[in-house]
C-alpha cells in the first residue's frame, strides 16, 4: 500500500504543478483539518435511475414498465432529469444551490459483486487492483495532524473500510454514552509485548485505541448540545443524531461515516426504495438544518455513495439487478449546487447497464484536494474532475 500511496501522492503533486496557472507551486495548500466529511454509504447498490430519473427519455419508461416513476410524479430538476418524489425534502437544499448531483459516477470494468465493488469504492481501487487501505486512510497518509488529536474519524456504521488502515485513527461507535462509560471501565488493564499472536495483537491494539480515543472524547461529548431539530428514531436517524452531536461538540475529526440500507432491491423494489430514499432525504435535510442553525454548514461536506447502481431493465420480480454507474450527492455550504456531469445514455449500454462518465476516484480526489487540501488523485491520470466544490 505504501508504494501506491507514494505514487498517488507524487502524481497528485504533479497535477498540482501542471495546473499551476492559478498560483503555481504555492498552490499546494496546507491541510485543512477543521473540515468534516460526512460520508453516507447507501448499502446494497442504490438504483440510480430511480433516484435521479431521466424522465424525458422514452427508453426509461419502456425499460421499466412496472418500476418507472410516472413523469408527473418526478420532481423535475431540469428538462431531462428529476428526483424521485421521495427526495422532495432535499429541494430546499437544491433551491439554495448547496446540493450537487454528480451524474454517472462509476469505474471501468464494473464489478457486480456487492463485496468486491464496495471494496473497490472504499479503497479507491481500479477494478483489477486489490488494495487494503481505505481511501481516507490513503489520503491522510503522512499528514501531520497535531499532537493533541487522538481520533481522526468516527464510524457510526458497521463498515469502516474507507477509514481503515495506515495511521488514520478510526473508532467505531454506535452510542456515545455507552462508549465513554465502557472506555472508562476498561482502563488500567495490563499492557506488554505480544509475541507472534496477531489475534491478541489486534485485541490489544483496539483496546489501546479505545483508551487513547476516550480521553478527549469523553470530555468533548459530555454536555454537548443536542441537535436543534430531532431525527427519526430509527437506524439512520440515530446515526445522524450521533454525527450531529460529534460536530456540535467540536470533536476534532476529519470524517464521520454513516450508512443506510439495504438498497439491494431485487424484488418488489418500489416500496423499499422510496422508503429508503425518504429516510435519506429527511435525514440529510434535518442534518442541513441543524448544521445551519449551529453555524457549521460551511464546515461539513456530505457525500453519498453506493457500490453500484442497478440495471436499466427491471427484472421479473418488480425489482432490478446489480448494475454499474449511478449518481452521487454532495451537500454543504461549500458545495456548488446543481447538476454536474451528464446523465448516462440509456441506449449506449454495457451488459445492460448505463456506462459511467465520471470515475469515482476523481470525486474522492476532488474531496481530498478541495476539501482537505490534500493533493491526491487515487491513481487516475488526466482526470477531468467535476467542479462541485468551491
Amino acid at each position, binding site marked *: 500500500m505504501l508504494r501506491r500511496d507514494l505514487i498517488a501522492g507524487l502524481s497528485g503533486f504533479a497535477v498540482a504543478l501542471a495546473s499551476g496557472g492559478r498560483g503555481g507551486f504555492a498552490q499546494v495548500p496546507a491541510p485543512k483539518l477543521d473540515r468534516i466529511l460526512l460520508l453516507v454509504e447507501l448499502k446494497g447498490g442504490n438504483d440510480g435511475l430511480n433516484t435521479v430519473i431521466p424522465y424525458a427519455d422514452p427508453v426509461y419508461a419502456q425499460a421499466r414498465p412496472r418500476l418507472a416513476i410516472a413523469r408527473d410524479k418526478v420532481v423535475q430538476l431540469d428538462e431531462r432529469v428529476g428526483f424521485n418524489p421521495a427526495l422532495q425534502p432535499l429541494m430546499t437544499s437544491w433551491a439554495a444551490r448547496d446540493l450537487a448531483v454528480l451524474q454517472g459516477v462509476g469505474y471501468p470494468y464494473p464489478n457486480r459483486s456487492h463485496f468486491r465493488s464496495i471494496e473497490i469504492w472504499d479503497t479507491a481501487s481500479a477494478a483489477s487492483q486489490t488494495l487494503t487501505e481505505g481511501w481516507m486512510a490513503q489520503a491522510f497518509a503522512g499528514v501531520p495532524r497535531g499532537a493533541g488529536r487522538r481520533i481522526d474519524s468516527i464510524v457510526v456504521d458497521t463498515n469502516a473500510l474507507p477509514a481503515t488502515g495506515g495511521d488514520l485513527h478510526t473508532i467505531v461507535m454506535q452510542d456515545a454514552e455507552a462508549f465513554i462509560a465502557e472506555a472508562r*471501565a476498561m482502563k488500567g488493564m495490563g499492557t506488554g509485548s505480544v509475541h507472534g499472536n496477531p*489475534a491478541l495483537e489486534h485485541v490489544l491494539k483496539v483496546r489501546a485505541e479505545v483508551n487513547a480515543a476516550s480521553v478527549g472524547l469523553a470530555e468533548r461529548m459530555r454536555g454537548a448540545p443536542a441537535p436543534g431539530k430531532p431525527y427519526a428514531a430509527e437506524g439512520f436517524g440515530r446515526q445522524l443524531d450521533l454525527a450531529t452531536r460529534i460536530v456540535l461538540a467540536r470533536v476534532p475529526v476529519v470524517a464521520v461515516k454513516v450508512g443506510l440500507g439495504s438498497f439491494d432491491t431485487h*424484488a418488489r423494489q418500489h416500496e423499499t426504495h422510496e422508503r429508503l430514499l425518504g429516510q435519506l432525504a429527511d435525514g440529510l435535510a434535518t442534518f442541513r438544518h441543524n448544521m445551519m442553525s449551529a453555524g457549521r454548514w460551511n464546515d461539513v461536506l456530505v457525500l453519498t455513495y453506493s457500490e453500484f447502481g442497478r440495471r436499466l431493465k427491471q427484472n421479473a*420480480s418488480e425489482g432490478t439487478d446489480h448494475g454499474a454507474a449511478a449518481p452521487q450527492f454532495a451537500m454543504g455550504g461549500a458545495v456548488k449546487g446543481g447538476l454536474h456531469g451528464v446523465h448516462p445514455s440509456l441506449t449506449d449500454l454495457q451488459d445492460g447497464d448505463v456506462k459511467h462518465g465520471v470515475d469515482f476516484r476523481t470525486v474522492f480526489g476532488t474531496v481530498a484536494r478541495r476539501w482537505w487540501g490534500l493533493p491526491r488523485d487515487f491513481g487516475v491520470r488526466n482526470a477531468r474532475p467535476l467542479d462541485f466544490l468551491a
Partner: protein
Amino acid sequence: MDNPISPMVTRQAMLRRGVAGAIALGAPAIVARPALAAGAGFDEIRHLLSRTGFGPRPDEISALEALDYAGAVDRVLGAWRPQAGTPAPAWVGMALAQTRARQREFQQRRETAAAAPKSEPSMADATGAPPARPRGAAMEPKPLVNANPIQEQGRELRNWWVEEMLATDQPLVERMVLFWHGHFTSALQKVRFAPAMFHQNALFRRHALGNFGALLRDVARDPAMLVYLDNAQNRASQPNENFARELLELFTLGEGHYAESDIKAAARAFTGWSIDRDSGAYRFYPAAHDSGPKTLLGQTGDLDGGDVVDILLRQPRTAELIVGKLWREFVSLKPDGAEIARLATAFRAANYEIRPLLKALLSSATFRDAASRGGLIKSPVELIVGTVRVLGLPVPEKTRLVRAMQSLGQVPFEPPNVKGWAGGEAWITTSTLLMRQQIMRRIIEASTVAMADGAGTGMMARPGRRMDRREQMAGDDATMQLPPDDSTPVEGRSLRDAGMSARVGGALAGLDAGMLTRTLVPVVPRVPPTAGASAGRIVAALLLDPVFQLK
C-alpha cells in the same frame, strides 16, 4: 505459549477431582500413572475442545485427557446425531399460506386498533404492562396474542438454537451448523417464513459432518435459500441472477473465477426452481424453466440446476474455497496456501466427505503447534454460549443472550448479508470490544449472585411474564439490563467485591488458581491472577482479561 503452571500440579488437581478424594488434599506430589502419561495432556485437549466447541468445561477436558491426541480427535469427530435434541418450536410444520394469513390478520388487527379510540381501559393493563396495547387485544385471554407473529417466531427460533448450543453434548455439530449458516447464508428478515429457516437449520444439521456435495445439492433446493436469494422468482422469461451469482461467487468458486456469462448461464439453469405458494416447500415449475442450451465454465448443454452443482463440484476452486474457510474457522487466520491446496485436493478426491477433512485440519502441524493457541478470536456466539456453559450459569430464558450476541454483531438466523459474518479480527472493533467487556461484567455479576444466593437470578428473565417478554422484544437497546428485582447487585456491589465473597459453582468448583486459568484462557493472561485471591475474583479477572476473547 503455555500457561505458567506446571503440568504436574494440573494433573494433581485433576486427579484430586477425578479420583474423588482417594488422594489427600495437598499431597506434595503425585506419580503419574502410565496410562495418563501417554495422554495428550490438559492443555492440548483444551485447545482441541476450545476450537471445536464452546468454552470447554474441566469435566469435558478431563474426559479426553487420557487419550492420545489422535484418539481425542476421533472422539470429537465420533458418532454424531444429525438432529437437535431440543424440542422444535410448535409452528415449524406451518405452511407458508397459513403463516401469511396469520401475518395479515395481525396487521389488520393492529390497523383496526390504531384507528379505534384508546380511552377504554385494557384488561392487559392488570398485569402492569404500560397501557399502550391495541384495544382488540383486551378481550384475548392468551398472553402475547398481539405479538407480531413473525417477530415472535423469530424470537422462539433464535432461542431454540441457543438453547441447543447450551445443552448439546456434541458442540462440534453446533459449530459446524453455525459455520454452514455463515456460508450458505439466509436471513429471516428477508425470508419472512420462520419454518423455512428452521428447516434450513435442520438441513445444515443433517450434513454438518457429512458430505459437502450432498449439502450443496440440498441447499440449491432449500426454500429459505430460494427466497433469500430470489431464485423463487427466477424464470425463463426474465432470469433473476441473484442466487446464481452468489452460488458462484460466495458458495463455490470465489470472485474472479468465473465470467459474467457463467452467471447468466447458471441463472438460466436454475429458472423454475422455486417454492410452492401454499406449502412453501420446494417446487419445480417446468413452464418457467429455460431448457435451451447454456454454456457454463466451458460445458454446453441443456443444463439444469443439478448439472450446475455437478460442474461446480468438479472445479478445484470449490474445494479450495471451502477448505480455506474451514482453515480460517478452525486453524488460523493466516492462510497457508500450499497446505490448503493439498487438503483441498484430498477433499475433492475423497468425494467431499467433511469428517476426514476436519480430522486433517485438527491434526495439522499448524493446529497442533503450541504457538497457535489463542490465535483465533471467539465469535459473539462462541463467547456468550461458551461463557455461560463454562460457568454453568442457569439461563432459562435465552432472549437476553441473543440480545447480547446482537450487540456484538452476530444474531443467529440473521447474518448481516449474503457473505455472512466477516469473522476473524473484524469481530473486535472499538465498539464491540467495549461491548464484550460490558457483557462479561454482566455475566459475572449474574453468576456470582446466582451462586451466592443459590438461585438463578441476574441474567435470567422470568419466562412467560408479560413484562419480561415485552422488555425483551423492545427495540435494539444494546445493553443487557438486569431485571429490576430485589437481589440485583449490579453497580452497588462491585464485581470484585462480589467475587470475593461469592463461590464459583458448577464445573469450576474446587479448582485452584492455576487450573482456573488453564481452563478459562488459552494463553497467559495479561493480568496474572492475584496470589491468594478467591476463586470468584480470579474467574472475574480472567473473564475480563483480553485473552479471554481468544481461543
